[in-house]
């Protein structure tokens, strides 16, 4: 196992390594992250990265293929624009985690702050705690699963993304409505929970939210919704 001690080595050295084929299938330990920014960004190959401590902005940004575990809390923009692979944060995630992410799986074992999954484009997100306001704003595709509650304006201006929420939304955003939980959705949720290694969760407690598709094309009659 390669170990990067960020108390002595730079984030640059770590990221350079993650951008080379030499770490393919390797296990990489990162210690003393000290809340530094841009840790493990742009990873390109299949590898396991274990970060022991808290990370700053944009950890795992644009990740491709790597499996990244953060044994701590994550700052803003965790896994932003992720393409594939998995990111798991054992603690809480700050605002706009998984912003615009296209693929892969993000698991937040704690809470996620405001704008979780903003403009998501295909990623799957499982938050085992609660999420803040304006989460899934303009979410395009992908799935967002939340065990706890959601803040104000959940799914505002949502497109085709699906939200599965066990708790209560403080309010729903424009054009976001509750939709029926059919068998296909229960199956989809079950598969997502299995991928996230989330056990002991009763699928029947979840409700599904998505787009009413009323704002897809501008109509002056909808002016009050904007």
């Amino acid at each position, binding site marked *: 196992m390669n170990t990067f001690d960020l108390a002595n080595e730079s984030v640059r050295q770590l990221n350079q390594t993650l951008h080379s084929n030499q770490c393919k299938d390797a296990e990489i330990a990162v210690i003393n992250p000290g809340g530094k920014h841009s840790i493990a960004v742009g990873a390109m190959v299949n590898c396991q990265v274990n970060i022991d401590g808290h990370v700053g902005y*944009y950890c795992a940004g644009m990740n491709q293929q790597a499996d990244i575990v953060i044994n701590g809390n994550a700052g803003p923009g965790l896994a932003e624009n992720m393409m594939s692979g998995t990111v798991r944060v054992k603690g809480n995630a700050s605002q706009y985690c998984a912003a615009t992410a296209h693929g892969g799986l993000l698991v937040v074992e704690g809470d996620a702050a405001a704008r979780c999954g903003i403009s998501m484009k295909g990623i799957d997100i499982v938050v085992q705690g609660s999420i803040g306001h304006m989460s899934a704003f303009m979410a395009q595709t992908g799935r967002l699963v939340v065990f706890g509650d959601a803040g104000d304006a959940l799914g505002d201006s949502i497109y085709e993304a699906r939200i599965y929420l066990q708790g209560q939304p403080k309010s729903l955003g424009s054009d976001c409505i509750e939709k029926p939980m059919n068998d296909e959705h229960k199956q989809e949720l079950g598969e997502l929970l299995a991928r996230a290694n989330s056990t002991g969760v009763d699928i029947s407690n979840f409700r599904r939210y998505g787009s009413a598709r009323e704002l897809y094309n501008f109509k*002056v009659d909808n002016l009050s919704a904007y």
Partner: protein
Amino acid sequence: MSKKIDQSWLNESATFTRPVIREIQRAASEGIYDIRGFGAKRSIPTFDDLLFLGASVSRYPLEGYREKCDTRVTLGTRFAKKPIEISTPITIAGMSFGALSAQAKEALGRGATEVGTSTTTGDGGMTPEERQHSKILVYQYLPSRYGMNPDDLRKADAIEVVVGQGAKPGGGGMLLGQKISERVAQMRDLPQGIDQRSACRHPDWTGPDDLEIKIQELREITDWQVPIYVKVGATRTFFDVQLAVKAGADVVVVDGMQGGTAATQEVFIEHVGIPTLPATRLAVEALKGIDMHRKVQLIVSGGIRTGADVAKALAMGADAVSIGTAALIAMGDNSPEFENEYNELGTSAGYYDDYQDGKDPSGISTQDPELGRRLDPELAGRRVANYLRCLTLETQTLARAAGKTDVHNLEPEDMVALTIEASAMAKVPLAGTDWIPGVTHKF
């Protein structure tokens, strides 16, 4: 039969002009603001309000076609391991595949490459055609992040973080459903045929301190190889430029209010932002104020049409300019060749600005496959190259007349202003005087 009237007696209101009356009638009928393409059409101070002082007794000129007048410029010398070197200080501005046809994007790449300059992607991502035909391609990093991915990011020769654009500083974009073809929809991860909003601000950063961290992230992902630009619409230009530099930009792009757009509210186009002329002077002052002029390169855009515009922007201190609308016109936009079809659309060659509708008979601002096929990328690319060459020659002509061996040696001292407004905005003296409004003493 209506009575014939004597037109000479009609007195048009300067307040309620015929276009104003027509717009009120349209708004009353449709209940929604007007959305259009192109850029600001109102009259504002421009580079036309400046004149060059050619060489005479106190300066000697250079011989045209004989004595060398360099036009090359290197962009991104601050942090990037691989700065961009372009042969002419005129680049192609960001315009999206989606707003433009694939043929148009290819043509822009071909034209820019032929003369050794760069072209730029736009909202909607990088197309293979564009990358293949663009030797130097700048990849825009926009709030929507449509099509954004690290593979394309690493294929780019530079990254441009777009904070705003001159046509709509503070506004996002809207690509109307009629232009959302299957390919555009697929690239943007959205259903076909729906209106696509491009966000007005980035989803994962706010303010200059966050921007600094965001730029660091982009550098880390691309291993500090390529320059990172920051593009702003011209508003609070002095502060925006200094903050962009503080955030770590290699290059700052300032887009004046004349800058074009594919689809923006008319009220936004005509009433937000400041002209390119004062924005250029403010940007240069901002860079000089922190001793970063020529260390961080400045590109200005918005209403650049002629070599005179280019030369004046450079003389004021810009390192390069960008063109957008002018490049579309060079390809065939608003050509009399399509007059009958423009008439069918209720307009005329020279007035067409409905880029948002996707019905462009020239095949440029459309996603209609049949219309798109009308544009031959090789021919249109050749026209873009011809136009860029012409602009470059004109710029050199003016620089040689001022005795400069490099177009970047032009300076404010080589110019005077025709109007008090331009004098105040550009901070060059009113022609025939030593007076600059707002500047207490020149000598």
